């Protein structure tokens, strides 16, 4: 595109945008302003406003502006595998530029009737997930976690254990140390060749983060649709992504809604998460994300909107009685689990799982009684004992085993602490498994 006109007369500069008069510009187009990447965010007649990702500090009014004639794109192909890129899809690893087909990122949505119902088990071996919150390919689910929980470790563990063909890591505002951690985990597992990473670290301009999920998911769509692969996309941390959204909307003079977030937060997040899909041809995109919470507050606009979009959420919680991080059985949920449990896993799975959680509730009530200084009944004592075993043997994130084994452990615990009446499971199952 050597014919691209160069403009050198900015009419307005704000904290993050600049405005100039230009012809034949299309909405959403990328441009270079003084060699900084920028995107068209407003057109009024021939007046064009550009958002400069890295900010406008030191930008001269005669800065050189070159329009690229196209929105952000990524060259997709098999050569993406094993590589590290920045938010613009440029290599971070000194490797060559990818040479595949150039596609616009953030493409159209999948026709719902061309999707297939997600129904393939995605086992992780982590009991707190596989037992109570079973994952399915094509699902989208975040970890809701406080910043001090080991979420990057848990997520990398899930990624390495889950059976997938490709893993796409989208790092937003990732601390450099965490970036190096992921890199090391991938290398140690000998899995580097099946991983593609798009990384924006805390050192990069925050607005650039907004491109990361679209980059990652465009790559994911290539592998899932062109290669019929099972793709797992890891997005961390979506809270920092949403923060970038609020910065932009603030600079665009939009009226903020709850928690200073833009009114479009729900749609903005949904556009990303809904890229998770099971395709008819066998390929799939599964998204596991991280949403860091502030003091465990899930009513904040970011986790709240996320919860309405994703198919459940996994809560990490420190359990004081066993002094370990567990997957919280109350607040965690996998909405798609019913597509697989009892069908792809043993038939007693749904009932056993629910009975255990009900008994765990009784234990929590007993715990409250105890804390309030009341005497515990015999049942309360048993429920409490059960809950310790349950947390230790199944909910702790370091427990790794297969689903059959998990169910057997629960049956043992049931028989150890309760009577059949108290557990209240269909007789057809108790006849088989009660020992």
């Amino acid at each position: 595109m050597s014919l691209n006109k160069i403009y050198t007369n900015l009419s307005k500069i704000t904290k993050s945008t600049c405005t100039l008069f230009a012809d034949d510009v299309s909405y959403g187009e990328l441009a270079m302003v003084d060699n900084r990447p920028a995107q068209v965010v407003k057109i009024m007649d021939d007046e064009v406003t550009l958002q400069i990702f890295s900010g406008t500090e030191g930008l001269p009014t005669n800065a050189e502006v070159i329009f690229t004639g196209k929105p952000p794109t990524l060259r997709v192909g098999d050569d993406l595998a094993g590589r590290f890129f920045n938010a613009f899809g440029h290599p971070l690893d000194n490797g060559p530029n990818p040479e595949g087909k150039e596609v616009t990122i953030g493409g159209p949505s999948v026709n719902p009737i061309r999707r297939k119902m997600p129904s393939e088990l995605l086992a992780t071996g982590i009991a707190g997930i596989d037992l109570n919150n079973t994952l399915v390919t094509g699902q989208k689910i975040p970890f809701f976690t406080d910043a001090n929980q080991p979420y990057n470790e848990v997520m990398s563990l899930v990624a390495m254990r889950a059976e997938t063909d490709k893993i796409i890591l989208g790092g937003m505002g990732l601390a450099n140390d965490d970036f190096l951690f992921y890199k090391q985990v991938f290398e140690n597992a000998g899995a580097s060749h099946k991983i593609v990473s798009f990384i924006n670290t805390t050192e990069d301009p925050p607005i650039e983060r907004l491109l990361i999920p679209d980059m990652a998911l465009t790559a994911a769509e290539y592998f899932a649709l062109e290669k019929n692969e099972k793709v797992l996309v890891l997005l961390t941390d979506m809270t920092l992504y949403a923060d970038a959204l609020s910065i932009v909307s603030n600079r665009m003079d939009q009226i903020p809604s709850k928690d200073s977030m833009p009114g479009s937060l729900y749609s903005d997040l949904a556009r990303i998460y809904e890229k998770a899909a099971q395709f008819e041809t066998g390929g799939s995109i599964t998204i596991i994300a991280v949403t860091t919470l502030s003091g465990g507050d899930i009513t904040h606009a970011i986790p709240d909107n996320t919860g309405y979009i994703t198919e459940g959420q996994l809560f990490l919680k420190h359990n004081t009685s066993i002094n370990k991080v567990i997957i919280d059985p109350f607040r965690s949920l996998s909405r798609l689990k019913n597509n697989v449990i009892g069908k792809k896993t043993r038939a007693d799975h749904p009932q056993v799982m629910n009975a255990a959680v009900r008994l765990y509730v009784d234990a929590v009530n007993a715990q409250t009684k105890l804390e309030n200084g009341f005497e515990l009944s015999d049942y309360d004592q048993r429920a409490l004992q059960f809950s310790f075993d349950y947390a230790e043997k199944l909910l702790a994130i370091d427990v790794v085993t297969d689903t059959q084994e998990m169910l057997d452990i629960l049956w043992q615990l049931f028989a150890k602490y309760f009577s059949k009446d108290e557990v209240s499971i269909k007789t057809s199952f108790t006849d088989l498994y009660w020992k």
Partner: protein
Amino acid sequence: MSNNNATKGKVRGIIANLVLVKADGPFMQNEICYIIRNEVKLMAEVIKAIGDVAYVQVFENTNGIKSGADVVFSGHLLEATLGPGILSSNYDGLLHNLSTMTGIFIQPGDYTDTIDIEKEWYFTPTIQIGKRVQAGDWLGHVTEKSLIHRIMIPFIIEGFYTLKDIVAEGSYKASETIAILVNDKGKEFTVTMVQKWPVKKAITCFNEKPRPFKLMETGIRTIDIMSPMLMGGTGFIPGPFGSGKTVLQQGIARQAEADVVIIAACGERANEIVETFTEFPKLDDPWTGKKLMERTVIIANTSNMPVASREASIYSAMTIGEYYRAMGHNVLLLADSTSRWAQALREMSNRMEELPGPDAFPMDLPAIISNYYSRAGYVKLNNGEAGSVTFIGTVSPAGGNLKEPVTEATKKAARCFYALSQNRADSKRYPALDPVESYSKYLEYQEFRKNIEDDLGGDWTAKVTKLKNYLRKGVECADQISILGDDGVALETHVQYWHAEVIDNVLLQQDAFDLIDARTPQERQKFMVNHILATLEAEHVFESFEDVRPFFKKIINIYKQMNYKSFKTEEFEQFRSSLEALIDEKNNHNTSKIDSVV
């Protein structure tokens, strides 16, 4: 509509999905126009006019539009095409047929027709030439799936016409003229099986809209018994995420006593609607034995589909509902979720730089919501027949806070309130409807009471009140026990607590994933209510509070096993007699003990 002197325009400005268009002629508020981007026509709606500039919201992503791009105005508002062939279809929010689109992705501008107007239908006229007719009158019918689909005088007709001509019984294309009308001034009007209607306007071709009175059975016990929904009623389900809203709504869609079910997935998860696409063609309609899909229409404007058409999807769905109601059918319309619709309104109002109301929602949000709910209802048609649109919307309150603007506005508009409780959901008490918080104002309707007591006995509503009272007492007792401790309260408090637990565990909780328990027909509900009340009213005397839990746990367990068995089968009766034996034994045992003490 191709119109030679249609207004044209040029794009002047673009800010996200708001586009400013300079028009070369007149245009209407809410008129549909098309913006040409690289030869693809993108649909948009006028939402404001200043001078010759139209502010339009585009139903697509606006990336790639240039200043100066051509715009064509259509001359009409956002319309639904109504005719036979809608049932079993899957649409986007603007009623484009998703099944006839090509490719895995929805390409912008791929606007497919709502129905195939070339398709032939076997038409049976049911009216004589010379009759005086008005909008909504029935001319005849075709059979759509297994439903009688009335062909009606188009709703846009004003005043009375005389039927001048009508075709004989036979097969005709939907687009063919089947009747000619003429009015007093000699003006003629041709009628086909297809008509158009602007979706934001209510279809009011009926005689009157009396209060609803007839139960719409859902087979979900906590709804049918405790907070009944009526044919032509309105209700809403607010619930934090993870409280079982979706499962509940799907249960209603599958089991409700309705001729037509419209599911509007408004800004929700695509996988949920995929489940419906996948399951409904296989599942049986419990009322007709036909496949569920036959009575279902799906409007899928999932959360990643364009925001502006999300707003439209709610209206598209209601218009289809009103269309089938005008044929004398009972329609159930489920919208998930109306909060997403409100958010779409908010996004647009924000871009238009309107002064915001609470939580940045538009100021007139309550009016928009109540106006929408008022389109539902039970109606008497002009020919004496009746039809209904029952509307149940879900609300996704931000942060689970029921004081937020959408929930508050909806609470004023809807007659039934189905409160999903996070606590119940956390402890897996599904459906997680809070039986004390939830209500149905219809329980107070004399018309309804009379109708249900004709079916279930004259003391039915008294029994429902009794159940609610047990539950209320149970909540109080639970509080007392947790404050004062097990041995700090009277024995009777424990018993009352467990009475509520029996009702909760046996009657209210229901396993949506169990083939038998998922749906309880009215006869069985009646049996259960009577049986449970008798159990609770029987005298049980306990020595200490420690005996109370094991006894009631046993009762609950047997009742639950009964719930998993088909009604009145041998297995069911076995559990029933062992239950009754247990209760009798406790009764006699204690009575004799009391005697000896005395």
